[in-house]
Structure formats: structure tokens, C-alpha cells
């Protein structure tokens, strides 16, 4: 078991798409070893935020400071590929698999910089279905298999910080529960998670704290204990701007 000490502080982040000002001063603490979950209505900027942390989008203003063991670094301006060596990985919205690669190739094209608990072998152990389909091209996989692969391909990296953007989108309840369990396991191993989620029950199952995102900004942030149930959370989102 590893105990990474990785956290991210986002402050006053601004992102524009052309003329539209999508993130308007986002601030958020993603605390070490916790699962921080962002919920919010469609189009408020959740994906924009998580992709900015990943370096796929480039904020015009603000900072994203990574604190990792002895390293303290502002990620803004660093290219996306640098994230791997800093221990950050992304499960993107819509999976975004490589259609012309087989399942196995998805796991082979990356090499972790440090050895960790996960190898191609252990991952195939965790996902027997992917092992059966290892020679299949990603564009022939079912929805559930695609989600598993999107998670599996970043677990090979043994990340310290895992960014997940709606990993349960379109999945059957049984699979959603499996993913919740997996996130809890990772979290026990010390992995810090920043999760964007629409399924509120799932969000409550895994989160340590829940941030409600409003249009372009983070609104209230609640520790998990303060939210009684799905209905309470749903009311909070509906009540947000």
C-alpha cells in the first residue's frame, strides 16, 4: 500500500472558448487522499475544469498548484504529457478510447515512471472481461467494456491523483456499484480522486466532500456527513444558481 501525499489547489481559474467565458474564477481544494466530487447541472463547466487540470485546455488566468511529496508546482502552462510523470491521470467524459488500438495495446502504450501495485497482469485480473476481449479493437467494444477500458488504461499508470469525468455515464446499476467499489479501493490505497458525477447516489457512495458547481464557479462545498441523502443533494443542486 502506498500513501501518496498529493493534493491540488485550484484558485481563481478562468477559461474562455473564444468569446465565451466558461470558467469565471473557479477555486477548489482537492485534498490529499480524499475523493472530492463535483456535481452540477449540464453545461456549467465541469468538464472544462477537469480538462484544464489535465492540461488539455489552457486557462487564461489562475493557478492549479500540485503538492506532491516535496514537489510544489503550478500546472498552468505545462503540457498535457507532463501530467503522467507528476502522477496525474484522467478518465475523460465519453471515454475517448483509441478506436484503432486493441484492448491490450491500450495498456501497452504507456509505461508508468514508477512501479506500482498495478501491472497489465493485475489489471486483467481485475477486469476478466477485458482479458477475454484483449485482442479486440476498442471500436468494437460494448459500452460497459469501453468504460472498464477507460479506467483500466489509466490504472496502469499507477496515478497518485485520478481525475474522473462521469465514469458511470450510461452504465447498468451493477457496473456502477463495481466502479464505486473500485474508487473506494483506490482511495484506501492513498489515491486522491477528483470526480465529476451526475449520478447522485454514486456521488454520495464515494465522496469525502461534495462541491456544487454553478455556472462557471464552484458554489458551496459540503463534507459528506452533512448531506443526508440523494434528495437533500438534489435540492442543493436545484437551489444553486
Amino acid at each position: 500500500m502506498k500513501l501518496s501525499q498529493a493534493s491540488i489547489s485550484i484558485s481563481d481559474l478562468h477559461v474562455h472558448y473564444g468569446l465565451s467565458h466558461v470558467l469565471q474564477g473557479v477555486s477548489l481544494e482537492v485534498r490529499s487522499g480524499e475523493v472530492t466530487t463535483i456535481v452540477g447541472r449540464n453545461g456549467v463547466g465541469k468538464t472544462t475544469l477537469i480538462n484544464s487540470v489535465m492540461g488539455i485546455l489552457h486557462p487564461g488566468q489562475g493557478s492549479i498548484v500540485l503538492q506532491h511529496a516535496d514537489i510544489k508546482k503550478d500546472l498552468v502552462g505545462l503540457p498535457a504529457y507532463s501530467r503522467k510523470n507528476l502522477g496525474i491521470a484522467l478518465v475523460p467524459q465519453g471515454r475517448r478510447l483509441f478506436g484503432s488500438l486493441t484492448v491490450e495495446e491500450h495498456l501497452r502504450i504507456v509505461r508508468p515512471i514508477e512501479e506500482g501495485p498495478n501491472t497489465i497482469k493485475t489489471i486483467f485480473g481485475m477486469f476478466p472481461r477485458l482479458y477475454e476481449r484483449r485482442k479486440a479493437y476498442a471500436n468494437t467494444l460494448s459500452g460497459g467494456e469501453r468504460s472498464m477500458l477507460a479506467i483500466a488504461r489509466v490504472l496502469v499508470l499507477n496515478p497518485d491523483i485520478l481525475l474522473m469525468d462521469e465514469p458511470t455515464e450510461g452504465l447498468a446499476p451493477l457496473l456502477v456499484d463495481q466502479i464505486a467499489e473500485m474508487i473506494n479501493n483506490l482511495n484506501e490505497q492513498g489515491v486522491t480522486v477528483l470526480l465529476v458525477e451526475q449520478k447522485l447516489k454514486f456521488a454520495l457512495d464515494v465522496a469525502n466532500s461534495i462541491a456544487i458547481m454553478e455556472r462557471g464557479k464552484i458554489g458551496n462545498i459540503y463534507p459528506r456527513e452533512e448531506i443526508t441523502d440523494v434528495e437533500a443533494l438534489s435540492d442543493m443542486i436545484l437551489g444553486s444558481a
Partner: protein
Amino acid sequence: MRFWIFQLLNGLTTGALLFFVASGLTVVFGLMRILNLSHGALFLLGGYVGLSVQHFTGNFFLAALAGAATSGLMGLLLQQTFTRTLLGSTFNQVLLTLGIAFILNNGMLAIWGGLPQKLKTPDFLSESISVFGVTYPSYRLFLIVLAFAAGLALWVFWERSTLGAVVRSCVDDREMAAAMGIRVDLVFASVFAIGASMAGLTGVLGGPVLGVYIGLDFEVLLLAVVVVVIGGIGSLNGAFVGSMMVGLIDTFGKASFPEISYFTLFAPVILILLLRPLGLFGRILPE
């Protein structure tokens, strides 16, 4: 009968040379979405450099090496200088890469002059041998064999190796490839440089067959673009099949109906595109 076998072998020779040129063009197009219209000039540059090196050293292998290296470096230079600003705008790409093609063309004219020249075949391949009842230059047979071997090697690299998978991941989704830690910029630069050096190498390999002359750059570019279009953008299999088809059609067309050889080349091309608008092996590229 002999005429047909002879033309068949000629067509395969042209197809072989085309494949070496078109494979680089199509892979760069598929990966970076750049149609590099200076690819023909890089081909001819290799040919001229090879010509000079052979002139001074008498060594065909050195000539091939020098031609490949020069075009590869020139390609790398172009890629590093221009492609960042070119990515995305098709119109800029066409103007800029065509402009570069003309500049290189004029530069080569200034250095090597306007007289058509020819490389000498390497000594050990200078004999003719008899195949299927016709006597055929062994050098040309060597080119055909080389094309099939190279096609197979490229296919294995592309479809079966991990490095090939890395390149394919960049074709599919370069943002996600970068998110997985892949240096997409280095992949782009390497592929562009390798494609350019293959073009340069082909300029030398083709030197004893096609000769080396100003204007050959655009002739080769036209045929290579036709190959990419009928094979399907980004497809190595398509480049192989397309090259052999274009090589054969072009050769038979010129041999049988020399007055209308453009018609005999383009009529089948148009037919293929009507039936398969993405080319024989094409697919819709992501993004």
C-alpha cells in the same frame, strides 16, 4: 504475351517506387492532417543529392544514405518551422507546402541545372535476368521485391508493434494520447522526418529508372496524391494497393494509349471514388 509481361513488370516497378513515396505522404496526412505538397520536391532532392554523391564516390549505397538523410533533415526542418502554424487550416497548408515545393524546385534547378540526368545502377544489379520468358533488368526486379518486403515490414510495425500502436493512438485522439504521457510532438516530428527520408531514398532508388530531372518532383507528387486518395487517407494498406494499381494503370495506359494517358489514369480513379468516396481502405478520421 511478352509485351504484357514486360509491361506488368514495368507497372510493378513504378508501383514499388510510388509506394515508398506515397506511404510517407499518407501517414503524415492521417496523423497530422497535413497534405504535404512539397513531398515530391523532397523526393527529387534525395535524387539529386544521391546523384552528386554517386558522382564523387561511385558508391550507390552512400548515395542512397545521403539522399535519405538530406531529405529527412529537410523534412524535419520544414516540420519544425511551419507545421505548428499550419495545423488546422487546409488552405494555408496548400499554399505553404506548394510554395515550399516551388522554392525547392528552383533551388535544385540552380544547383544541378536543367539537364535530365541518371544515376548508375549498382554494379551487382546491373545484369538482366530472365523471368516468365522475358529478359528483365535485375535492378528493377530488386525494387519490386524491396517494395513487397518494405510493405510487409511497415505493416508489421504499424499493426503489431507497440511503437506502431503509439503512433496510431496519436492518429485517433492526440489530446488523449498526450494525457497518457505520450510525446505527441516527438511522434509527429519523427513520422514526418521518416516520411521525408523515405521520399528522398526513393529519389535515389528511382534514379537509375526514372532519371533525375526538374519536373519529376511534380509528376511524382501528382501520382502519389492519386495513390493517397484512392487508397484512403492514412492507410498503409491503401497506399500499397493504390500504388500498385496506379503503377500498373499508368504503365499500361502510356504503353497502349499514349495520347490519352491522363484519361486512362484518371477515369478509373474517378470510378473508384464514386463507388468508395473515402478510398479503398479509407475511414472517417476522428475529430
